[in-house]
């Protein structure tokens, strides 16, 4: 039995091992492969960037749970860092479902380490969960104080400088919704179409395809699709001199590139082996 015969019948656990190594090594030692910026990401970045100096806030909603965390959490961290660096007021919302609050907390903790002069209540506010699903989106149109009452830590919103001046969509420049499901369309239907508040979206690689029409119609300002979108946002931060800490998404993309190439290499080798063995058998 020759090399190719053995290669074709390779125990699949070897494939598992190689995939595992291909993921872990870039995580331990980032490769720093270049990132190419795509228009949907650039548009979202520019829109938020232009809010610098205006007194409008970014409203960042965490509508995802741990299952899509690897893709969506880096987006949240990147957007929070962007706002912190440019002193754009930001309201971080734990999302319409209870599972999102933990995600939002994690993102804030990861983002704030590089910004010692950022002050809670003045530069950002963290809102927790209230029941109501899409009714919450409508209710924010009337009053944030009326909808939530208290922030995540139990402070009354009318005691925090930020929420004293920003109370509904009129003073919100953009709502960025991070979700792997169809919640971004709720924000479009209720916050954009009813109150005219602009919407940006961060979603998983799988869901991104279904949202392209929303970009074309302008219902989304911009979109971050999957880990790649998050990596592009991190890259834009770096290019503009904003500290990014550990660039989770960019490093993840290194791993992505390596594993994709690896799988393609396996497919090619598998085919070479297959044709080699077949030709030999035909001759015989």
């Amino acid at each position, binding site marked *: 039995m020759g090399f190719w015969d053995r290669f074709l019948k390779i125990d699949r656990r070897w494939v598992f091992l190689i995939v595992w190594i291909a993921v872990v090594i870039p995580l331990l030692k980032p490769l720093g492969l270049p990132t190419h910026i795509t228009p949907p990401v650039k548009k979202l970045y520019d829109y938020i960037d232009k809010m610098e100096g205006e007194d409008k806030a970014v409203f960042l909603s965490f509508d995802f749970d741990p299952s899509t965390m690897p893709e969506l959490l880096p987006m949240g961290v990147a957007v929070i860092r962007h706002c912190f660096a440019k002193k754009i007021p930001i309201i971080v919302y734990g999302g319409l479902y209870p599972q999102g609050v933990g995600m939002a907390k994690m993102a804030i903790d990861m983002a704030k380490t590089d910004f010692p002069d950022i002050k809670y209540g003045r530069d950002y506010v963290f809102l927790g969960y209230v029941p109501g699903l899409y009714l919450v989106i409508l209710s924010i149109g009337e009053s944030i104080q009326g909808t939530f009452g208290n922030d995540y830590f139990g402070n009354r919103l009318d005691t925090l400088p930020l929420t004293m001046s920003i109370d509904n969509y009129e003073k919100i420049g953009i709502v960025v919704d991070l979700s792997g499901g169809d919640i971004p369309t709720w924000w479009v239907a209720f916050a954009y179409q009813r109150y005219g508040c602009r919407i940006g979206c961060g979603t998983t690689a799988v869901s991104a395809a279904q949202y392209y029409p929303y970009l074309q119609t302008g219902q989304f300002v911009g979109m971050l699709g*999957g*880990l790649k979108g998050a990596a592009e946002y991190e890259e834009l931060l770096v290019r503009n001199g904003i500290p990014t800490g*550990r660039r989770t998404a960019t490093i993840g993309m290194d791993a*992505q590139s390596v594993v994709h190439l690896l799988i393609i290499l396996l497919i090619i080798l598998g085919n070479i082996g297959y044709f080699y063995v077949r030709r030999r058998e035909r001759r015989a």
Partner: protein
Amino acid sequence: MHISTNPWVWIAAILTLAIYSFLYKDNPFYKFAEHLFMGLGIGYGAVLLWYNSIIPRLWNPLAHGTSPTRFFLLIPIALGLLSLGIFSRRYSWLIKYPLAFYMGAVTGLSVPVAFEANIFEQAQGTILKHSMFSNPWLGISNIIMFIGVITTITYFYFSKQHRGLLGKSARVGIVYIMLAFGASFGYTVMARISLLIGRMQFLLHDWLGIIK
């Protein structure tokens, strides 16, 4: 390196490793995680069903409702009770009643969905419109897609032998289907790798603290 001191992180990490050990081969650790998972799953499912469905849809209307139509809810309760007949050998056939209701409901509910959401929307999107030819490349793309829809439908034409024109069309259809499946497959790889990256970051960062 800062290994986590949080016992819950340790539990999560051990369970993660237990599941991964399955990739090597079946073993008691995987079996442990599997049985725990199934147990938690059924308990979670029962709680979920109870609070999202039985309480708001059955208990609240019956106990606190005022609408006279609420007593219609006694019919599904009766049907539900019939399904418990399966516990007795003699009356196990009673399950056929709730099943029959289900079948009726299937038909009734799936027909509108099939029309509204799928057939019409897909067919309307297929019809070539003037706006689809605003530039030559777009026009060619839309014709390629149009042929894809038509030939795929002919592949699902069952009551005639796939010979002649129908045969050729169905053949083109299966080629299209393969192209589409390849694309879907390749498209999904990234999302799946992301999941693994997420788990590895948990193990290496949250648990072992090897990476910052």
